[in-house]
């Protein structure tokens, strides 16, 4: 089994598992479906782990035996395969988590939910591994279609249906925008393979068509990554999706949007005929910082736990985009470690929120005040997750933050380090505040401020009938395992080195082009390795942000923080922007594309 075989197998296993499960679900009991689904997910994890360990540069698979000029070539460097592995691990965790948690429909529809999760995994893995631009659009839509259905799964509750519909319309419209961009690129270069388009663009100086095509194609990636001002759909979709689906969306799907943007820029538009590096660096640093700050501010305001975690994901996506916008191998390496660890930690936090939803039928911070005291282990795990989000040193998120800060401060400016520390502190602090209030009942019960434009977590129906039986052990074991997995990159230097060493390949388009367009041979990664160890100031900054998070969390749990009138008005206006209205989100999408085109054209 050479790498060239492993690549298609990684996509074929879930695509084969889903129909088999859909048919087997009619005859097998619930246990049989779960075993079958877990086996398929475990098989995919094994296949992708094998692939990830064997890649040293870029490994390619020519589908149908056709070269890149004619057919589709799957091309995976360590970053793409690593993200696909993260997806597979999270899918396995989600399927094990929902063994006895989920009130699946019985009868002939028993196997449908795991089958849909497997199709969702196939879409994500295919998107991470493909080397063809139109194929990326197809897998983008496959990811979307299965995510819309999974988000709207609880049809008795009105809000999931609205969240899923908004999610569907905004993401589909962005996909059609990117298809227009693909049409423009196809007309100009006559190619559809990423490396071939990149080479085709190199012939002429960059003109308006290249900038517009880049803006249109990358818009779909930014919508999927929930970068401001395209992020509005994410909190609505996350607040209402079933917990296993939230774990997948926040843990992996959003990060794939960031990876897609980086892959398309590096492979297609970073050459001579593409978008100049300075234009990309300034524009995307601005988008990244705006997303990070907006996500942090909105995260602090939420009382609905899942929306709070969703805005925390948006804040961290802003940090990933800022790190990638540095356009240096260090920045890519830092972002890769940060994404890997954040995916595990955020999925664990969503899993723990699912426990609260299962026990108390509510995910509202005020409503749950002090009610979860006896869930001692869940409280400890939740607090550890909050500290990990804040970037506490031993955790992979701490290492990723440190590496990103170092890369960003050397290329863009030291003030960005302050943004990293502040955003990590605020998001970590919000999670710690929730942990202290819900699990330890710290501080007074928050006053009921009846401003009606806020989504409370009340009245959520528990996702399983009959919560009287004991808590399924998997619902705490899986989040615990994911937190351990989130700590592995920080504690085990070999893993961190493997991630950062592979990340250099993303920032090396010539290597990718040689691997895809040249004769099919294994291409090794030249050049000096990137630093992946803890540095003194990295550890120091991690401790500072963790301490600030603890101060913020504990302080605000005891008594609400004083806020100036102007700040309160500003935040209220910002929250009214998140109106849940489909027309608003699409108007902001139009404005976002316009700003992106104008900013890139001005500097091109």
């Amino acid at each position, binding site marked *: 089994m050479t790498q060239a075989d492993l690549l298609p197998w990684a996509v074929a296993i879930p695509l084969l598992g889903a129909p088999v499960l859909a048919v087997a679900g009619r005859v097998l009991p619930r246990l049989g479906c779960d075993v079958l689904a877990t086996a398929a997910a475990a098989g995919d994890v094994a296949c992708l782990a094998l692939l990830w360990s064997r890649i040293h540069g870029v490994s390619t698979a020519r589908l149908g035996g056709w070269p890149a000029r004619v057919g589709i070539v799957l091309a995976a460097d360590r970053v793409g395969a690593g993200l696909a592995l993260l997806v597979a691990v999270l899918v396995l965790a989600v399927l094990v988590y929902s063994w006895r948690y989920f009130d699946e429909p019985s009868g002939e529809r028993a196997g449908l939910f795991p089958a849909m999760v497997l199709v969702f995994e196939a879409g994500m893995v295919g998107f991470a591994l493909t080397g063809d631009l*139109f194929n990326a659009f*197809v897998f983008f*839509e496959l990811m*979307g*279609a299965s995510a*819309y*259905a999974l988000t*709207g799964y609880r*049809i*008795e*509750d*009105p*809000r999931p*249906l*609205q*969240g*899923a*519909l*908004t999610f*569907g*319309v905004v993401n*589909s*419209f962005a996909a*059609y*925008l990117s*298809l*227009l961009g693909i*049409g423009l690129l*196809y*007309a100009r270069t006559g190619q*559809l393979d990423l490396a071939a388009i990149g080479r085709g663009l190199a012939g002429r100086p960059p003109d308006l068509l290249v900038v517009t095509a880049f803006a249109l194609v990358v818009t779909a990636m930014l919508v999927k990554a929930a970068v401001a001002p395209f992020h509005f759909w994410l*909190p*609505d979709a996350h*607040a*209402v999706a079933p917990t296993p689906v939230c774990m997948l969306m926040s843990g992996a799907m959003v990060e794939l949007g960031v990876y897609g943007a980086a892959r398309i820029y590096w492979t297609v538009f970073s050459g001579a005929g593409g978008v100049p590096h300075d234009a990309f660096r300034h524009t995307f640093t601005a988008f990244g910082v705006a997303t990070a700050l907006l996500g942090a501010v909105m995260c602090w*305001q*939420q009382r609905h736990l899942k*929306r709070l975690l969703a805005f925390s994901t948006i804040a961290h996506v802003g940090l990933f985009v800022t790190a990638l916008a540095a356009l240096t191998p260090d920045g890519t390496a830092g972002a890769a470690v940060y994404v890997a660890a954040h995916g595990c930690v955020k999925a664990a936090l969503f899993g723990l929120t699912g426990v609260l939803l299962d026990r108390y039928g509510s995910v509202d911070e005020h409503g749950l005040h002090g009610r979860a005291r006896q869930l001692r282990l869940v409280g400890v795990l939740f607090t550890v997750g909050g500290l990990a989000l804040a970037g506490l040193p031993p955790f992979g998120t701490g290492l990723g933050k440190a590496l990103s800060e170092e890369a960003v401060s050397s290329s863009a400016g030291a003030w960005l380090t302050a943004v990293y520390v502040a955003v990590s502190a605020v998001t970590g602090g919000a999670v710690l505040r929730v942990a202290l209030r819900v699990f330890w009942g710290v501080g007074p019960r928050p006053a009921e401020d009846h401003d009606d*434009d*806020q*989504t409370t977590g009340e009245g959520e129906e528990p996702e399983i009938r009959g919560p009287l039986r004991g808590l399924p052990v998997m619902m705490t074991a899986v989040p615990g395992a994911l937190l351990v997995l989130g700590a592995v990159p920080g504690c085990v230097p070999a893993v961190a080195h493997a991630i950062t060493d592979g990340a250099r390949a993303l920032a090396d388009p010539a290597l990718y082009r040689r691997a895809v367009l040249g004769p099919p041979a294994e291409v090794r990664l030249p050049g000096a390795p990137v630093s992946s160890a803890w540095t003194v100031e990295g550890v120091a900054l991690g401790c500072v942000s963790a301490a600030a998070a603890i101060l913020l969390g504990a302080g605000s749990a005891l008594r609400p923080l004083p806020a100036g009138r102007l700040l309160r008005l500003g935040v209220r206006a910002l*929250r009214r922007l*998140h*109106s*849940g*209205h*489909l*027309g608003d989100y*699409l*108007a902001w999408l*139009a404005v976002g594309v316009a700003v992106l085109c104008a900013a890139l054209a001005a500097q091109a």
Partner: protein
Amino acid sequence: MGVLVYLAAGWMLLVALYGLVTSRNLVHAVGCLSVAQASTYVLLLAVGYRDGATAPVFSDLAPGSRPLVDPVVQALALTDVVVGATVTALLLALTIQLRKRYSTLDPQALTGLRG
């Protein structure tokens, strides 16, 4: 005549976005989304057109006897038509269930998710 076809695709997209932004009924919004998708077919096939060329099917044509239109964009448009049909069906299924739980389909009145 040339650039007009491309501009028509752009016009269809923006008028569909206008319909989506000002929609007062989610079924109408899903219809506008399928109009937005139609713009991608028009652009793709316009890019592949060639003057005086015939369809790329050799069932009644000797290969190489006449210039051909670009078959690749037709394959892309075909895949796009299928994607459009399926996404429309999924969003309409969500709309049916949404209508059962909310008494209206006007985005203005759907106030469940805010803040």
